[in-house]
């Protein structure tokens, strides 16, 4: 399984990004880590070049919000059926509950949304979803 991952936004969150990469590798994924400050277009294009099965975007201080509104548009440019889109981290700028956040991000075009969820738990869920989609 191939996965493209990286961090949205302008803050440097190298440690979290690298820990996700190491976790994914440890679970047997082939990982393409685009690192910090990655743009949406870059994520999508990397998925195309690598034939990734999964795109896992992390966002650490709610920066993904405005940015994700363009996701459906970018998805429409390519044939991306069969690619699982996941986003995790701290997905809201202020206080917000799971119930508010998850439907909003699903509407943006993500299949899986993890707001303030433990890394291992999130990756377990992703693995289950990937198995189901095969």
């Amino acid at each position, binding site marked *: 399984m*191939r996965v493209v991952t990286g961090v949205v936004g302008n803050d440097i969150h190298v440690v979290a990004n690298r820990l996700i990469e190491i976790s994914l590798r440890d679970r047997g994924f082939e990982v*393409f880590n*685009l690192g910090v*400050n990655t*743009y949406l*277009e*870059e994520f*999508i*294009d*990397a998925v*195309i*070049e*690598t*034939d990734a099965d999964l795109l896992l975007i992390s966002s650490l201080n709610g920066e993904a919000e405005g940015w994700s509104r363009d996701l459906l548009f970018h998805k429409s*440019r*390519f*044939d991306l059926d069969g690619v699982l889109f996941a986003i995790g981290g701290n997905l809201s700028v202020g206080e917000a509950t799971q119930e508010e956040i998850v439907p909003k991000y699903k509407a943006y075009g993500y299949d899986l949304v993890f707001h303030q969820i433990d890394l291992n738990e999130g990756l377990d869920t992703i693995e289950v979803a990937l198995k189901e989609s095969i």
Partner: protein
Amino acid sequence: MNQLQIDIGSTYFKTNDNGKINQYFRNFDISIHQDLVNNCSQILSKYQKEEVSICSSANGGLSTLIIGVTSLFSLKYATNIAFNSGINIIDTILYSKIDEAVAPAETINVVIVVGGIDGVESKFDEKLIAYLKDVNYQNIVYVGNIEGQKFLDENIENLMILQNIIDDKLHIREDELKAYLTNLYQADITGKEDIKELYKFTSNQIYSTPYIVNNALPKLKTLFDVADPFIVIDIGGATTDIHYSTDLVDNKNILTGSGFDRLVFKKLGVFKSRESLVFGAKSNEFVYELLDYLGVNEHILDDSSDKATVTLMQLAIFLVLYQVSNHHNDYVSLKLEILNSIVLTGGVSKVLSDEDIDKIISFFYKKILNYRETPNVITDRNYEIWTLGIEEIHNVSQ
């Protein structure tokens, strides 16, 4: 050492006869070869073939069509390599849109096909073959993933296959494609007979002038009072080149270690591309303010006076800066606010006075960037940057 250097441009050709630079207007009624013989037979007779180095930007340079699967990896990487190899005319097609793409009317010197990292399924199918049937090209090179090689090789005649330019970390790998493209002058290209004939004068490889200029940049300090980061703007008759320090680019995924990248505006020139330059100028929102500031009115754009040429060149400088600034998000945007020096070369150095140049650059910095101060501007009055580049290449190959 005894050395004769020759640069063939689209309007002039120049010779550097052991440090003495001469320029000649091209005579378009005869071949370049004949033109050289007519003008410089005396100089040429002083040198052995191995003492002569030639670079050329005549005939507008080579044209390229790049077909790739994404904008930010395949197309961007191939475009970067092509520009830095001295290629001038670059058109790109995103493979997902190839159904809608129209084949170019003119002959393409080289088609580049690229996409996918090694280890994943081929990115290309019958659609590519169908499209290529309508394209009139002379060379075709595949620099995509290994998996695509077999299908393309079976279906495309004379396909050149080189190393994938996208590595397993999604980073650029430029060496093989760059070498191939810079060597194309050497290759047997129909329509460039003019260039081939020049090998009668030299036993050294003929390079494209922009490639030579790009190679001169790390040593530019030995010629001019410049400090990095700087840009070099080369405004010619047909195209305008800009070479820029790589630290002027924010948020790029390309990392090559070459120090300077190049970009070409193919329809920005004061002679051959005059119409598109005027069109570009007229559609810029600042142009009337700019013309007013220069003390002229818009009618000058349709004029053929010397004053009109000066204004057009000023507009060309303005448009280049505008198009690489943050105001215009295109292939690159440069952090012009941290620029230390601007070097101007090409036809512009013959036409514009220091005052003309300062005027346009300070307009851009004050009006567009809202900066008080402008970078230090140098004009290559003798048009000698290329000689530095030829020397660099010559030394490396010795």
